[in-house]
């Protein structure tokens, strides 16, 4: 086939693709792939090869995970946190996205969209600290509740696991709403009407039509939320106090409290390995969900 010009109709040429995708991939290569490859290499070393330090190849960083119980228990705890936050985002985000996609039209929809995306406009650290102002003792929430129900007293919400969950759900909920919205608004209204005309009630329509058709959006949102949450350390530290120790904070410590990049890298790649294993196990279920 003769090559067509990029402006004309038809498939883009290899040259056009390279020009358009090239800068993005060069950027990804320099800023993500190369540093990550370096980290993977470090994880098999005994020390960081900087300056006069000597490093030799070793598996002891990975072995450390299996030797010490608390690494494993914290890894499990982090995965549980990921599941809880993702589950809550699904429960809250899906109905939100449904109403946004199906029930609200015109100006109101744009306004609500803006509100959904609002957390993205604020700095993540500022968001988390504003939650401390709400949740802490004598904070906004406690004072409001005690103003109405004076006998309640201290709520004890700060420095607890629920506080961490609240902060994380707040930060990551927009992802779920947006991905579900995209899937839901692609569902033809006529399809729902057809199901109704065939006698289906709302429960049946939800179960057999809406959820399967929105599944891609829900899965995308779940991945976008689960992966960052299991590695999170900011919200756990700030909101969790003594309950805020997770594999993410342990990894962070390897870089900020000691100069043990190899161990930090090894724990990170172990986490990545578990995530990939989880996705591999869940893949058949996802395929079935697709109807």
């Amino acid at each position, binding site marked *: 086939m003769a090559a067509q010009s990029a402006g004309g109709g038809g498939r883009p040429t290899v040259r056009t693709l390279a020009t358009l995708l090239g800068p993005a991939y060069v950027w990804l290569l320099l800023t993500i792939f190369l540093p990550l490859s370096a980290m993977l290499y470090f994880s098999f070393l005994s020390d960081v090869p900087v300056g006069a330090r000597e490093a030799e190849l070793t598996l002891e960083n990975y072995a450390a995970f299996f030797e010490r119980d608390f690494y494993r228990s914290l890894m499990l705890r982090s995965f549980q946190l990921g599941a809880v936050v993702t589950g809550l985002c699904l429960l809250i985000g899906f109905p939100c996205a449904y109403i946004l996609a199906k029930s609200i039209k015109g100006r109101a929809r744009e306004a609500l969209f803006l509100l959904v995306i609002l957390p993205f406009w604020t700095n993540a650290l500022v968001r988390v600290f504003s939650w401390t102002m709400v949740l802490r003792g004598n904070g906004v929430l406690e004072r409001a509740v005690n103003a109405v129900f004076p006998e309640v007293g201290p709520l004890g919400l700060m420095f607890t696991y629920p506080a961490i969950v609240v902060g994380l759900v707040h930060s990551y909920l927009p992802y779920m709403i947006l991905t579900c919205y995209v899937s839901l608004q692609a569902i*033809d209204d006529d399809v729902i009407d057809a199901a109704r005309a065939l006698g289906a009630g709302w429960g049946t329509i939800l179960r057999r039509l809406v959820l399967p058709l929105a599944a891609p959006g829900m899965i995308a949102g779940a991945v976008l939320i689960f992966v960052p949450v299991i590695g999170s350390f900011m919200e756990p530290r700030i909101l969790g106090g003594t309950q805020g120790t997770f594999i993410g904070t342990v990894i962070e410590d390897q870089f900020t409290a000691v100069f043990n990049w190899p161990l930090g890298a090894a724990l990170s790649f172990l986490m990545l390995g578990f995530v990939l294993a989880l996705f591999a196990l869940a893949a058949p279920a996802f395929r079935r969900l697709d109807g």
Partner: protein
Amino acid sequence: MAAVSVSGVSKRFGPVQALDGVSLDFANGGFFALLGPSGCGKTTLLRLIAGFDAPDAGQIGIGGERVDGTPVERRNVGMMFQSYALFPNMTVADNVGFGLRVRSVPWPERRRRVGEALDLVHLSGLGDRRPHQLSGGQRQRVALARAIVIAPRVLLLDEPLSALDKALRVSMQVELRRIQREVGITTIFVTHDQEEALSLSDRIGILRDGRLVQEGPPRALYERPATAFAATFLGEANLFAGPVDGGRISLGDGAALCPSGPPDPGAATATVAVRPEKMRVTAAATVPETGWNWLDAVVEQHIFTGSSLTYLLAWRGGSLKVFEQTLGEAVAVPGEAVRVVWRPEHTVPVMP
């Protein structure tokens, strides 16, 4: 199967009056077309009959009982959408069987009835395909099978053929009619294509701006349009208007037309419609047969389309169109002065 009756139905959406006091009866087992330009309210009426909306005023009855209080899920109507609205995440068989599953029909019977429905629409063996693997015509037939298999009282079709190309549409029209006759179900379908309405239906209802203009069998509607709009929307027509003078419509300069029936008594002016195929082009000074209407005109264009000849002419009061079958006679050429003749029975008085 049941008859459907619509009585005095009105519906308003915001500032728009979509339907205004429409009354129609759809006989049991008949094939009925709702015809009209876009925005005339035909789809709104169809959706009211289906139950997606409730009328602001008036009543809707199916099989003798009032249904305007019943939601669509319980009206047991079969609906087919312009976009087919097949469920993308299910196979053809699951699509067709959806309504049966909702009604808790047991699996063996469900399988049998789905198979019968697919046979009826000539799609046997495609039960395991997905909608995206089907052609437009196949999807349309799946939608039809899905609507019919639940044995609804009424079949409602919303512009079912408008998404198909011409050749497919014609063959589907035949199919649709065949299936409808075989099943014997009361069918109401919405279309803006007057040819389709004429060829398929037992009765047609013409709607315009939310009101019923005229309703009746196709032939009657065609030969006896009630209004100028009906005359020009359903088929083509030449319109003439003028003051009434002694039972004839005067067109000035001594020319006058004899209508098929008496014009509105007491009306000072009247309008008549004449179908182009009812007219004949003859040589300029030909004496018309007794009683026939005639007009002098000049040929502007003639268009030869194989089996017919279309003349576009200009006469003193405007333009004219004439269809003639090519019978090997001499053809009038542009610029030629001719005389157009036709019977008075074909001069139909219409409301303007």
